[in-house]
């Protein structure tokens, strides 16, 4: 019950910040979608980190650690490394293009409405793949703290996030998400330190003991399929390049005043993520000692929530559980509102004409579909599903943005062919791994973590088909403009 109360407080505080934000700027459609460009860089970095640290990081990372071993932490390294790619390849030019969504960028660079529509469809695929594990996390957390059935939790979470977006939009989201980053960091870090101290000398030693099983190998061996290095590299490729193609993250760089600030914001995000990712490992390590039962067939994603009660009995345990549950719910709330905004942008801005009421309808519709998809998805590991969203982004928008920004030879036909190849191969592989059992071996690795082949495949198709055509004569100008410093830019 303490947990439910704390989550209630979080929602109320988020709404309060949201309403203050709404008062500050009234929502015309562009403002509603991307906030004004007066957002300070520090807040913007915190908002991006807040939006980005999802249930996958707060719950899924420790859960997967418990299940597959210490090597699961490669996900966290890849999630952070993605911002090196963003800072180096995407943030500045993307800001200069003036585009606020990936479909916008495709339209700017390739001048084709068909590509815009194709991109909008891929946005929907990635966003729903990403939303399902978030809703699973929310339903699970509400179930654990209050005993309500899983489906009630999922539906409730959908209602909360829809109402909070419909009330605010993106402007308030900057502050709400910055606030959520702090909540996540504090509510995960403080209990982690407390639990490590409280667990006792013996438990700490047991948690750090290397045993001969594959669990202790610092590589990602999925379901003991063998080929740990292949799996690790595939996950690294998906998370690192996927971060550079996630539509809801790309949108946020439009809120920077210049390309310079956009790049610096990306660097700030690396600091904030690196700081956060020091803590989830504590839950995975202690979970191996205190909740070994979860590892054999239980839902390992619950470990972060269950662990405090196992280590500290009584009131303090209940209080710590409430803290981590609130942190987890903050992760759900901020990520899923960012995802829903990007999804609604795709539905209402790119696939039809934009207006604020229609955008609100699109948010509600998008949330409804996500809720319905999440109901049967309880058994899917959070990080595995999020990994698929990253793999699809890495196989579609990453090549589109990288080639669009850095190669004038990209043609609309080449982009379309590459996008289609990427989305079909990556989602196909994910579906195949969900529906079939390939047994141990490299095939199961390449289906469950498809980025190792789908990313090179998408790049190759995009380049090969582009080379067969000729880019329009204005293509070079469109590219050069992305790299030309703004005339009035700050210069120190």
């Amino acid at each position: 019950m303490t947990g439910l109360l704390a989550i209630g407080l979080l929602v109320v505080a988020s709404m309060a910040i949201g309403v203050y934000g709404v008062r500050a700027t009234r929502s015309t459609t562009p403002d509603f979608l991307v906030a004004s460009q007066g957002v300070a860089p520090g807040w913007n970095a915190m908002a991006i980190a807040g939006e980005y640290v999802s249930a996958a990081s707060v719950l899924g990372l420790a859960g997967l650690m418990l299940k597959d071993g210490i090597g699961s932490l490669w996900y966290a390294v890849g999630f952070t490394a993605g911002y090196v790619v963003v800072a180096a390849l995407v943030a500045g030019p993307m800001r200069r293009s003036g585009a606020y969504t990936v479909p916008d960028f495709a339209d700017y660079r390739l001048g084709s409405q068909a590509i815009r529509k194709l991109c909008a469809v891929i946005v929907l695929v990635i966003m729903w793949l990403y939303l399902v594990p978030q809703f699973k996390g929310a339903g699970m957390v509400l179930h654990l703290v209050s005993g309500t059935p899983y489906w009630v939790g999922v539906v409730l979470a959908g209602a909360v996030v829809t109402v909070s977006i419909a009330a605010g939009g993106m402007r308030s989201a900057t502050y709400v998400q910055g606030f959520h980053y702090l909540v996540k960091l504090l509510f995960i870090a403080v209990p982690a330190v407390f639990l490590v101290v409280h667990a006792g000398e013996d438990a700490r030693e047991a948690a750090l003991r290397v045993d001969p099983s594959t669990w202790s190998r610092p590589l990602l061996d999925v379901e003991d399929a063998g080929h740990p290095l292949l799996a690790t590299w595939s996950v690294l490729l998906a998370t690192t390049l996927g971060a550079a193609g996630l539509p809801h993250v790309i949108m946020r760089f439009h809120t920077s005043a210049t390309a310079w600030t956009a790049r610096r914001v990306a660097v700030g995000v690396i600091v904030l993520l690196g700081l956060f990712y020091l803590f989830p490992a504590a839950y995975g390590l202690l979970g191996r000692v205190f909740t070994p039962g979860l590892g054999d067939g239980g839902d390992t994603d619950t470990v972060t929530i269950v662990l405090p009660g196992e280590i500290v009995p009584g009131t303090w345990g209940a209080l710590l559980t409430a803290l981590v549950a609130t942190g987890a719910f903050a992760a759900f709330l901020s990520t899923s509102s960012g995802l829903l905004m990007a999804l609604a942008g795709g539905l209402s801005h790119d696939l039809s004409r934009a207006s604020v009421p229609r955008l609100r309808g699109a948010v509600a519709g998008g949330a409804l579909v996500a809720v319905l998809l999440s109901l049967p998805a309880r058994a899917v590991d959070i990080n595995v599903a999020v990994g698929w969203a990253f793999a699809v982004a890495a196989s579609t928008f990453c090549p589109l943005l990288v080639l669009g920004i850095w190669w004038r030879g990209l043609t609309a036909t080449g982009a379309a062919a590459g996008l289609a190849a990427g989305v079909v191969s990556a989602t196909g592989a994910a579906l195949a791994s969900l529906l079939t059992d390939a047994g141990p071996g490299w095939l199961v690795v390449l289906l469950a973590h498809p980025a190792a082949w789908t990313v090179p495949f998408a790049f190759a198709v995009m380049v090969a088909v582009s080379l067969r055509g000729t880019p329009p004569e204005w293509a070079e100008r469109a590219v050069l403009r992305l790299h030309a410093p703004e005339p009035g830019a700050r210069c120190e």
Partner: protein
Amino acid sequence: MSGGPRRVRVTSPQTRIALTRRHRPAQHLLPPPQQGADDEQAVEAARALFLRQRRLALRTLGLLGALLLGLSGLLAALPALDRVTVLGFPASWLLLMAAGYPLLLVLAVTHVRAAERAERGRREP
């Protein structure tokens, strides 16, 4: 509800461009990279800057790949690191949990500074 100053819709130039784009083909929206100056020369300069930035980007990407593949490859190649203890942690775990982040930050900061230097050089010849 009413009363108070009337709300005026304010958008940045980029937003206006983004909004009007759907009605016009993209090429009309592309002003030359530098107006007024000798166009041919401006395009040449923009091209040079673009190539410099692309070399920088490729270098950073290469270093990032070397860092990630190198670190994971190192842990795969040297299982002995699991048995070396540093600060109470197995060395390989510590490398995975904490070593990557500061290096990633160094990579990003180095890149951004170099990219900004390239742009400054362009603006103040």
